[in-house]
């Protein structure tokens, strides 16, 4: 099976988030970057499918040069090669615009399966995989926890709401978005990190994948959320704050 995994580089989870001048983006100056965790689960699923059924795992990521470190991480975990769509303007593209770039990069590879995480930890759009499927004219399914190769294609386990699940049969080629928790994530080994340096990373300029279409959505502004409740922050040492909290819960909120 030839599998492409679309991976996004996002700010590290605890990274300080500050709104940049102009209120349309976040300040990237002091940010550290990491692999979007749901995409790490997609990569894990791809690697396990390859281990069971043979084939090739290709990592695909779009973004500026810094994305290279996340691509290397995926290669170190076991992906065979990578495609880096060099694009400095992802922030000004909407979900459709970014998915178009990725779909164009996928097309000439003719993969059997395209996997990606169910959503990104920064924008959280949760749409990229589904849009890619539609652009490529492929069947898709979302929130997938397990994938099994069958005679006719694949059988997947999809998460529904409130503790329900469902098995779905899909023909190949297909696109899946992977839910976290279906597998245990692997770490890159020292040998893997060493090998990754030798693996092919093909750079493709965004401009070579077609002209950027005018966005269908515009971001008006980014702002800090307003509080829904007035939170009483209890100051002092851990001991003082804990004692104050117990007082409040007993005599003010009356829940203890």
């Amino acid at each position, binding site marked *: 099976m030839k599998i492409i995994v679309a991976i996004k580089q996002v*700010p590290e*989870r*605890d990274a300080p988030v500050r709104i940049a001048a102009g209120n349309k983006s*976040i300040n990237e100056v002091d940010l550290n970057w990491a692999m979007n965790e749901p995409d790490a689960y997609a990569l894990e699923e791809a690697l396990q499918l390859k281990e069971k059924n043979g084939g090739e795992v290709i990592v695909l990521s779009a973004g500026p040069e810094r994305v290279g470190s996340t691509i290397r991480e995926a290669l170190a975990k076991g992906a065979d090669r990578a495609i880096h769509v060099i694009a400095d303007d992802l922030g000004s593209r*909407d*979900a*459709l615009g970014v*998915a178009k770039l990725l779909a164009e990069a996928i097309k000439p590879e003719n993969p059997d399966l395209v996997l990606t995480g169910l959503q990104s*930890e*920064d924008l*959280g*759009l*949760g*749409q990229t995989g*589904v*849009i890619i*499927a*539609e*652009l490529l004219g492929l*069947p898709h*399914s*979302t*929130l997938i926890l397990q994938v099994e190769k069958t005679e006719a294609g694949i059988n997947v386990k999809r998460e*529904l*709401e409130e*503790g*329900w*699940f*469902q*098995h*779905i*049969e899909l023909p190949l080629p297909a696109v899946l978005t992977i*839910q976290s*928790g279906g597998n*245990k994530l692997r770490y890159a080994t020292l040998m893997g990190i060493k090998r990754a340096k030798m693996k092919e990373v093909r750079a493709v300029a965004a401009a070579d994948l077609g002209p950027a279409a005018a966005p*269908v*959505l*515009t*971001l*008006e*502004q*980014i*702002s*800090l*959320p307003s*509080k*829904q*409740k007035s*939170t*009483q*922050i*209890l100051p002092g040492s*851990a001991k003082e*704050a804990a004692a104050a*909290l*117990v007082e409040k*819960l007993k005599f003010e*909120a009356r*829940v*203890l």
Partner: protein
Amino acid sequence: MSVLLVLEDSCGKIRRVSWEAAAAAQKLAGGAGVTAVVIGAQTEALAAEAAGRGFAAVVRIEHPLLAQYIADGYVAALQQLIQKESPTYFVFPHTYQVRDYAPALATRMGQALIGDVTSIGDGPTFTRQLMQGRLNGSFKPAGSGPCFVSVQAGAFRADLAASGASAPVSTFAPALDAAQIRTKPSEPFRGSAQTVDLGSAQLIVSVGRGIREAENLPLIENLAAVLGAEIAASRPICDNGWLPMERQVGSSGQSVAPKLYLAVGISGAIQHLVGMKASQCIVAINKDPDAPIFEVADYGIVGDLFEVVPALTEAVKAAK
């Protein structure tokens, strides 16, 4: 100006999130009225349920191939309705099912879904969360086609959806062919038998990524024990296998509304908040003062949980 709204059903009843989306759609429509859409192989009862809820009209999209939810069938059927009605706005409740097909539908119409909307402002502008709830982004459609919007659960009040006289009901029969439906779902099934009913717990201590390692969980267990509370967790803790999935609170787990919800080391992504924000009293313990959990908390302690939780356990003991 016209607004179409998809009402999602479950077990033959319209789901509550659909009425929340109805409130958003009605806000968007102003006085213009909303056309509600129900989808399936037999939609008479659903349409009857919808007809008394203040809509301008109810459309039944009916076809034998729509008996079960499948993205291909829904996209094809809704595309045909959009071509007939040319709505200005097309509104959905933001459910797992909508996440599965609405982005494809929008793409087919050359648009992009504004997903997970939490509020609608003048313009209109649509606000959704970014960076796991640390920021809000407000968006506007730039294109000329229909604008697709899905509405976050809990963001609009279902009881604000208008009610009113019976709306006229019509049936729309899309042209669907079995060959268009490429995927084959089987019957939904429940995960492992539920042995914990967090929904009826009065006190819950819930733990998130801040706990760092499974070895640190006894800290939380001790606090829960002195409180007589149930233990719950955010998704990553269950993904890692540190606690069973049935203890997960949030959109993919259980929804809870205890007297006291004590969130320890949980940043408060929207997927978690929708499962617990109806709690009577929310306490957050987190080292990050900007964590979104503090937006819904009644009381907060900004600090290291490894110091605060043992201190709190002692304080609770002392107060007994």
